């Protein structure tokens, strides 16, 4: 009976579900619709209201395939939907809420609009003196729908509320979905400026940290601030997310605000915010140098807040799937120690904390150094290097095999993963700290992004403190455990169950390894990834062989050699260089050596004695901006021709590896990073003087190069 009853409930629920579908589908039919290409429905949040209510009303457009309608700013052509309401007395509608649009190109124009199905929202306020009985709402809607040609469609639509005896209608779930697509209004301190024909927006990094800069789209609400069809380019600079797009017809002078929508992706999910930007005080002319100096960056997150979030973020890191297994076993082993020697446990706790904090500070210092050097990096930059990714994949494989019980290794620190289960002195704990940081590094936890974003735009010591706090957060549970015996008593007793638990925890490790292998595949392609997997087999083989080394004799040596060779081969199989299969031109740019000559201080001094103009490019293999500039603005026929015509001596300095000469040169121009482009104008025929060298912008186009080089 119970089963039957349960089944009945299920069926009822299904029926209710289907019924609700029909209710939504059956909402408001148009009274008079001329439109064929855009089907419109009016969807009130619910069909019954009381005095003082506020509800959403959706205007749902179903647009015929291949046709589109327009956003609030239609772009180069077109016009947005217009609605004129006929409302019962006292009712009021708020402004139309427009979902984030997309770019719809029609060469050479570009429009902002919608395809498929879209729901515009309006907030309806119910008056306090609500009359009894049915309420009728009528909307005259005109909508322009275009494919190549355009057709205006006009229609009158209606819906009713509080209709006596009508079936209750609830579209709230559907409208909630629609509301998600409306950009969230933010009060970020966004600045706008015009620099070299480019409209520039600067967003505080805050929530925008570590986005895929290719998936960032800007939709101006105001006409004329940008050339709509021109692509925008986003990059991280000095703690800002900077978006550049060729400027439009409107002069920005005297404009006190630019409104717009920014669309970006966070973990594959499209997010949209609507913002208002204020003019930057920096004058257009000076901005080139000014902005690239040591910009003082305000941040919404204060120092104390950042440290706090870092601490919390670090704490949460303990629960990340790759970190948790390492630490949970470590914690259990600690319990075992403290049973015998509480003071030894404290030493272990401190050693472990030191290991974690120092590793974090080391990674942060490396990160900041590289960041200062102009690298486009954020947290997890280690993963930019396929070799490190490969090594980490091996590390997780080894940890997994160890946990699974395939092997145990004795080493100076005790047992590698093993430190997980057993302990040999504080050094072992220190090592576990480093290990924990290594395995934690690829992970990000909630609260961390904001703190790291803050840290990276601060003076170095402040940044390091924030990172140290992150490390402390990670180490904190263990540290507390080692100091508070009462907590240790709460922990489960070590026992045989630990072995099973340990083996179980091998699987998250293998999962992490798979993830890293995938990253490597993305970086360097399938064949290199295959190489890494071969390496993984060799590594496992070497580990297995080492478990079966004969006690003595020639065979022992042979087996050892076999193991060592396998290990070497495994490491050899990790791809070392980033190979950009998609853009060989960019990365082969410097190798041909036909254009430009190698920079040296002597060569520069030599050519400066002469009369010819000199162009110095400071670059590095890991500097993506440098590569792009070189490929699109320098190593192009127009610039080559310009240089030839003007007799420009072109010197290239490569800062890929540490080079004190170049570092000093950069410092001379107030930089500690690449790219740096300096132009020395030719010697004046009359005065015999050279003009002051000019530092060029960090983003180059052939036109920018021409502007600097072509001046007499």
């Amino acid at each position, binding site marked *: 009976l119970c089963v039957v009853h349960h089944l009945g409930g299920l069926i009822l629920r299904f029926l209710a579900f289907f019924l609700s579908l029909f209710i939504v589908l059956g909402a408001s039919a148009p009274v008079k619709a001329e439109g064929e290409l855009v089907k419109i429905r009016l969807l009130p949040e619910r069909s019954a209201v009381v005095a003082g209510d506020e509800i959403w009303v959706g205007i749902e457009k179903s647009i015929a395939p291949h046709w589109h309608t327009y956003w609030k700013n239609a772009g180069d*052509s077109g016009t947005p939907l*217009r609605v004129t309401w006929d409302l019962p007395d006292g009712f009021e509608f708020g402004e139309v809420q427009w979902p984030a649009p997309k770019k719809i190109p029609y*060469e050479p124009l570009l429009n902002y609009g919608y395809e498929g199905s879209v729901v515009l929202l309006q907030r309806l306020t119910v008056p306090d003196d609500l009359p009894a009985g049915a309420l009728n709402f009528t909307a005259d809607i*005109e909508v322009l729908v275009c494919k190549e040609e355009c057709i205006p469609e006009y229609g009158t639509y209606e819906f009713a509320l509080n209709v006596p005896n009508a079936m209750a209608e609830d579209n709230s779930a559907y409208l909630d979905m629609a509301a998600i697509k409306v950009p969230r209004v933010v009060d970020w301190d966004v600045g706008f400026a015009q620099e070299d024909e480019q409209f520039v927006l600067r967003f505080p990094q805050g929530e925008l940290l570590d986005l895929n800069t290719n998936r960032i789209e800007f939709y101006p609400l105001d006409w004329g601030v940008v050339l709509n069809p021109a692509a925008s380019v986003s990059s991280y600079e000095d703690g800002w997310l900077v978006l550049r797009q060729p400027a439009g017809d409107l002069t920005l002078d005297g404009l006190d605000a630019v409104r717009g929508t920014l669309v970006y992706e966070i973990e594959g999910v499209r997010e949209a915010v609507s913002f208002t930007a204020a003019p930057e005080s920096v004058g257009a002319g000076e901005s080139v140098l000014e902005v690239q100096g040591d910009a003082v960056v305000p941040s919404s997150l204060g120092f104390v807040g950042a440290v706090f979030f870092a601490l919390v973020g670090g704490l949460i890191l303990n629960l990340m799937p790759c970190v948790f297994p390492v630490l949970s076993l470590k914690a259990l082993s600690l319990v075992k120690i403290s049973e015998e020697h509480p003071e030894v446990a404290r030493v272990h706790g401190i050693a472990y904390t030191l290991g974690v904090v120092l590793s974090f500070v080391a990674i942060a210092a490396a990160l900041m150094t590289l960041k200062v050097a102009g690298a486009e990096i954020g947290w997890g930059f280690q*993963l930019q290097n396929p070799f490190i990714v490969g090594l980490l994949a091996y590390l997780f494989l080894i940890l997994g095999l160890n946990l699974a019980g395939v092997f145990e290794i004795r080493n100076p620190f005790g047992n590698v993963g093993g430190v997980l289960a057993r302990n040999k002195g504080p050094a072992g704990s220190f090592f576990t700290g480093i290990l924990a940081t290594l395995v934690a590094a690829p992970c990000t936890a909630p609260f961390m992004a904001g703190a790291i974003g803050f840290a990276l735009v601060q003076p170095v010591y402040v940044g390091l403190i924030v990172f140290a706090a992150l490390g402390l957060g990670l180490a904190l549970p263990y540290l507390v455990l080692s100091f508070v015996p009462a907590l240790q008593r709460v922990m489960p007793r070590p026992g045989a169950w630990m072995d099973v638990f340990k083996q179980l925890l091998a699987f998250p490790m293998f999962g992490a390894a798979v993830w890293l292998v995938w990253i490597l595949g993305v970086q360097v392609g399938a064949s290199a990834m295959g190489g890494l997997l071969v390496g993984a087999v060799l590594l496992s083989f070497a580990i297995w062989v080492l478990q079966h080394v004969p006690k003595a004799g020639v065979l022992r040596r042979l087996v050892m050699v076999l193991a060592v060779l396998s290990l070497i081969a495994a490491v050899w199989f990790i791809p070392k260089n980033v190979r950009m299969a998609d853009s060989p031109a960019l990365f082969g740019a410097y190798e041909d050596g036909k254009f430009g000559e190698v920079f040296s201080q002597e060569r520069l001094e030599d050519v400066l004695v002469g009369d010819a103009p000199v162009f110095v490019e400071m670059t590095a293999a890991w500097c993506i901006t440098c590569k792009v500039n070189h490929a*699109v603005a320098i190593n192009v026929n127009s610039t080559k021709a310009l240089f030839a015509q003007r007799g420009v001596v072109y010197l290239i300095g490569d800062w890929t590896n540490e080079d004190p000469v170049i570092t000093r040169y950069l410092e001379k121009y107030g930089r500690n990073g690449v790219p740096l482009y300096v132009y020395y104008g030719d010697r004046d025929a009359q005065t015999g003087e050279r003009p002051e060298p000019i530092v060029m912008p960090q983003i180059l186009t052939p036109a920018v190069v021409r502007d600097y080089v072509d001046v007499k």
Partner: protein
Amino acid sequence: MILKKNIMMMGALLLAFTSAPALAAVEIGQMAPEIETVDVNGEAFKLSDHKGKTIVLEWTNHQCPFVVKHYGTGNMQATQKEALALGDVEWISIVSSADGKQGNVTPEEANAILSEAGAAPSAKILDASGAIGNAYGALTTPHMFVINAEGTLVYAGAIDDNSSPNPKTVEGATNYVLAALADVKAGNAVAIPQTQPYGCSVKY
């Protein structure tokens, strides 16, 4: 993944620099780009020969609903008449629809459309190559430009301030072109020199 992001950024940069918009942007206060062509009646037209006159350029496409809005209500013809009546004003209608695209017409069809609508521009020009449209950055039909007697561009943008395709919205709208012409006639700077053009895209 960060790397992938960088590759994509490079792609975006490349795209940004290679696919520079084909449309030139004309600036208010600058010399209007030269137009040298033949009109629908086979007569040569050179913009610089018309210095001393105020020139109105009107981008049109008789099949575009926005153009239909302004011609169907007689608004464009009325604006034209009023403009020409100011004296020393010439009105040039330009069709930049490419071959095979909406609005592309033969010279005979162009004249037929004019007489049917009762419009009488000083000249009508067919610009199927889009060269003139590109030089002026004409985006929409209609898209209006006013050039003063010195050949300087003094107005670019919409015909009026109501961007609806609905013919009912002609009434009550502020006509930007007539306002600009009145400013020019009075010897004043044009008060509203630039507005967002609205309409169908020019069918390049």
